[in-house]
């Protein structure tokens, strides 16, 4: 698979997971929310790393095309 598409797909999946998780967090019993929030925080960090990888890839591709 093309690396750019692979990154874009994974970013889209993670974005949806984070959005869905935040919605469902409100329906979870209070004592379970802390661990759920911990998971969401991990997904957000992961999302950030993937986005920066994609940005790097795009910048490299611009340099190559110049």
């Amino acid at each position, binding site marked *: 698979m093309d690396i750019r598409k692979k990154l874009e797909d994974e970013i889209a999946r993670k974005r949806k*997971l984070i959005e*869905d998780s935040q919605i*469902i967090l409100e*329906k979870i019993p209070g004592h379970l929310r802390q*661990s*759920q929030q911990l998971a969401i925080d*991990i997904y957000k960090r992961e999302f950030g790393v993937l986005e920066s990888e994609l940005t790097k890839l795009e910048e490299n591709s611009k340099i190559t095309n110049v």
Partner: protein
Amino acid sequence: MAVINVTPLMDITALINSASVNEGDVLLLEEGIYFQSVAVTKNNIRIIAKGPGVIFDGRSTLIDAFILVDVSGVVIEGINMRHYRGNGILMEFGIGNRIVKNKISNMIENGIELVNSNSNLIWKNEITSCYDGILLINGSTHNWIVENVTKECYGDGYEAFFGPDSNNAFLANTAIGNRNNGMEIYGSNNLILDNLLIDNGQGVIISSGSNTAYIDNTVEGTKLGTHQIFNGYNNFFASENYIFCNRREGMENLGQLGVFLNNEILYNGDTGILLDTTSSGNLVMDNVLICNIPQNIEDRGINNVIIRNIERPCETCEAPSEICNDFPEKVNSMDKPREGVN
């Protein structure tokens, strides 16, 4: 070191965070159904199922069954996990943890996901109907993925996501009927040894790095590409693999300076070994290729060396589709030639 009995009614995260649990303690889980997510933030905690009936059920509401953050030496053993919205086990910044003999099914995300985690052992887990079975991502290195089974996952059986996910070992794992790849392994210096990949969408993808060794694996019944090495991948080493009855090429190599040695590539529905246009400087030697359609080896690349291979074309009226329909009895009963032309 204490052994602490745990029941489904206890909040395990709160228990671990309390002063009554210390490093080296064993949490022995009674059988029953647990509706909770466990966050492990203390080192060397051993979470062990007392019997086969320990079930973590997220009821399609909770996100992950177990979350390990910045811990080492944690053991999670013998637990069933099902119906979470995220992963069975999510680990970030973990080192030297042991994930052993768990059964994980029906996760919307992955069975086990390691994020920027190193030197962990993932052993004898059974993962069914998740997205990826086991995913290594964001710089997960030096992990041992051993004797796991992934089955009927929507994505890949095993995935090392990107170049920084390097120096991992995938040993004696099985991937059956996964929709995407049996193994999608990016990165450098990974060891892929003695795995069995059957009836996956694709077999193996190798990309973004160099120096991976791929030895003694069996790949059968893939529906799309069987084994693809991407352009730019240097010094890939494939030896003693058994690749048969796949719908497309046995091996498609777009990489450079690879070595393909002593592989058996039989009855595939496309070329046995295809050295594609970008391939160069590869050595293809001592392989056995039988009845791959339209030909056993095709070289479209530059400066590839093809020597001492044993090739046999299809016999009259022989076709991979017919042979493979009768598999395994027919293929296994054939004497594979050890000497021949080329």
